[in-house]
C-alpha cells in the first residue's frame, strides 16, 4: 500500500506550490501514471479521497492520465510487441523502456489570485 505514501508526497508537493503561488483552494490535480510504475490506480484514488480531507486538496478532483508501457530497441527504435521478449529481433540489443513508468504531477488547478 505504497499508494498512501505517494498521496502524502503528492499533497505535500501541492502545498508547496500553493504556498509559492499564494494559492488557496485546489480544484483539480492532473497526474500521469504509467502502467509499469507500480501504482495501482484504484488504491491511489482511495488514498487520495482519504488523505485530501482537511488539507488544501479537500474537495479537489484527481484526474489520472494513464500511460501504457512501451519498449523499443535503443538502436533501430523498433518497438517490442507487448508481452514479447525484451530484446530487439533485428539488432539483438536489450530493449529500453520508452514510457510507462511515470508517477508525475503534471498540473494543479487552484484559486491563486497572485498568479
Amino acid at each position, binding site marked *: *500500500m*505504497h499508494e498512501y*505514501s*505517494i498521496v502524502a*508526497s*503528492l499533497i*505535500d*508537493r501541492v502545498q508547496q*506550490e500553493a504556498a509559492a*503561488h499564494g*494559492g488557496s483552494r485546489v*480544484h*483539480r490535480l492532473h*497526474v500521469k501514471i504509467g502502467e*509499469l*510504475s*507500480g*501504482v495501482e490506480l484504484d488504491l491511489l484514488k482511495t488514498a487520495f479521497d482519504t488523505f485530501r480531507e482537511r488539507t488544501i486538496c479537500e474537495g479537489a478532483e484527481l484526474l489520472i492520465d494513464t500511460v501504457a508501457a512501451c*519498449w523499443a530497441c535503443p538502436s533501430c527504435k523498433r518497438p517490442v510487441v507487448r*508481452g*514479447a*521478449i*525484451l*530484446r530487439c529481433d533485428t539488432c539483438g540489443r*536489450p*530493449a*529500453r*523502456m520508452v514510457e510507462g*513508468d511515470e*508517477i*508525475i*504531477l*503534471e*498540473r*494543479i*488547478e*487552484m*484559486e*491563486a*489570485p497572485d*498568479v
Partner: protein
Amino acid sequence: MCETCGCGDPEIVPIEVQERILSDNDAQAAHNRSHFSGLGLLSINLMGSPGAGKTAVLEATAKAAGNRLRLGAVSGDLATDRDADRLNASGIVSSTITTGSACHLDARLVHRALHDFPSHDRDIFFIENVGNLVCPAIYDLGQAANVVALSVTEGEDKPLKYPVMFQKADLVLLTKIDLIPHLDFDLAAVEDGLSRVMPEASMLKVSAKTGEGIDAWLQWLEKRRPARVEHAAEGHGHPHSHGKHHEHH
C-alpha cells in the same frame, strides 16, 4: 481563468509542475548515493518476497567471504530485530530499520539508518528491504544495484506477475535451488518470464544451505565494487548539496 472545464471562474489558474511525485525521495536517494560513493562501498538493495531467503543468502555470503570483505547491512523489518540479529551473528555488521506497518523502505529511512550505523568502514553494504514483491520497487534508496531474491518454491510465474519488481532488478538470485529435486520446478519457464519483463535478464542460481552458486554471486558483487577512494578521516567526506545541516556521527 479556468480553461479546462470552461466554468469561467477567473480565480482558478493552472500551475504547471511536471515533476515526479516522489521527487523528495529521489533527492534523498541521490544524497544517500553520495554517502555510499564517499565511503567507497558497493550498496545493494536486496528485495524479494517474505521468506524468499534474503537473510539466508546474506548469511551464506558472509560465510563464503570470510575475512576478505567487510560486510554491512540494514534490514527493514516490520516488527522485530531478528534479521539483523542473524546477520550480526554471521559476521555482517547490521542494524534494523523498524518500519512498523510500512511495507517498504524509502530513502529517508535508509539515510537515518546510515547516520546511526555502527561502522562506516565496509566494502559492501546491503539494504535488505521489507519482504514484499510490490512496494519496495518504487523507491530509489541510493543503491548501486537492485537484486531480487526469488525462491524456487514461489512458483515460476512470479516474474510475469510482478513485472515492476523484476524490471528494476539488475540481478535475480534464484534461491533454495537445493529443493529443486523435490519440486516440479520449470527453470526454463522462470528464464522465459524474466526475459519478457527484465531487459537485461540476468540470474544466478544459489543455495544458502549447500553454498552452491554463492561464489558466483560473490564474484558478481566484487566486479561491481568501486575503486577504493581516499575519503576524509573524519565524518563521511561527502558534500551536502541539499544545504541542510545535520550531524554526522
